[in-house]
């Protein structure tokens, strides 16, 4: 089972990316369900992590190193968002 126009190896990389993308979608269940704010943040953080992997795998499969810059920035933002939301939860908006 090989995607048209791609080598077996590229198909594997893209398949990996597709798997991680699917995981991200499944994680949306936890984001919606909760039950606490923290559960949602954990799930969103995991979605972000998966997105970074998808970007990196796509960069490898398409031979586009430029995607990696996007992944780096995305990783930074993902981390900052988790930290910021956690801080926000603890301080109830007092500081931020």
């Amino acid at each position, binding site marked *: 089972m090989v995607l048209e126009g791609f080598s077996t190896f590229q198909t594997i990389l893209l398949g990996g990316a597709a798997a991680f993308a699917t995981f991200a979608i499944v994680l949306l269940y936890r984001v919606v369900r909760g039950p606490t704010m923290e559960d949602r943040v954990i799930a969103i953080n995991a979605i972000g992590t998966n997105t970074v992997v998808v970007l990196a795998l796509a960069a490898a499969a398409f031979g586009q190193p430029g995607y990696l*810059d996007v992944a*780096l920035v995305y990783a930074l933002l993902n981390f900052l968002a988790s930290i910021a939301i956690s801080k926000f939860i603890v301080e*109830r908006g*007092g500081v931020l």
Partner: protein
Amino acid sequence: MSETSARILVPVGESSTFRNTAAYATREARRVASETGEEATVHFVYPVRWQLVDELERSASEEVADILDRARVWAAEDLDYDDDGEIDDDGVPVSIETAVVGEDRYLFSPSDFADVLLEYARDRDLGRIIVDPEYQPGGSAPMLQPLELELSRSDRIVEEAPVDRVVERGRFPSRSNLSKALVMFGASFSFYLLLAGVLDTFNLLTGAVSAGIVTTVFSRITFRETPKAGRLLRRTGRFILYVPYLLWEILKANIEVAYIILHPSLPIDPKIQRYRAAIWDDLSVTTLANSITLTPGTLTVDVDRDSLVIHSLTGSARDGLADGPLERAVRFIYYGRAAARIPSPRERGTVEDESVPPTPEEP
């Protein structure tokens, strides 16, 4: 304790006004002694923040010895100098002592520093504590005021030496600030060039400007201690040794967690424990906390000074933690090989159950 005392304790540290504080202390000791006939003595005491175990920390202990020597020499000079005006027959002798305290425990907070100082004062019967206004216990964290507060809770007389503060700070970069800035600049510049990927004039120029901005804004707050090339290299080297070990542990942890998660009956027995680590500074606590999070079924929930609140997934994970291999590894990275040989947390009895989470603070 009388109104004043000729038996004086002076906490010592690297400070620009220490010369004057030492002079003030000896002068006061002599003055009070000549008034009350008490035996005059000045103790210069250096509270050390780390245990001096590593070869590297030994060079730090030489620094400490150096500072104390200087204090002793200055005090001796001051005693002669004060004499030259009126050479008093009753030129009261002032004995000068120096000491290093706190080697056998971790000094973290101002109250820890106050405790060792007060203990020393009590043992030697020193009634008065003179604090240098520029004294920074434990590096650059602003701890002086809380320290003075803690000290003044005792029955000793506590005062700040009335010396002029030198206001050169900020205008001229000190050697410490310069090395902080250099390390910071080097790191951010090379990171920039790495991301740019091409070494042309444009990237070098914009990189230098960005690194310059980052350095001016952040170099003061990034480091707590002055970075020293030797220590930095050694720590990096030992950290590189640590990485394969950590990776192996992570792999084991993951297979365990994967088994638990995929097991139909979900065999978990979570519990929260509090655990005091024998680790002192921010960087090593961070390393330990993150390593714990990454390895066998344990997750750092909260860190308060050296005590970590840890959520563990299974009983075997708890046992692994109490054996303390990670703690030893982290001590190895930051304090050297000798420091790695310590009893496990279980043997030290520093693990306890934290059954009830703190009550929520409702606004």
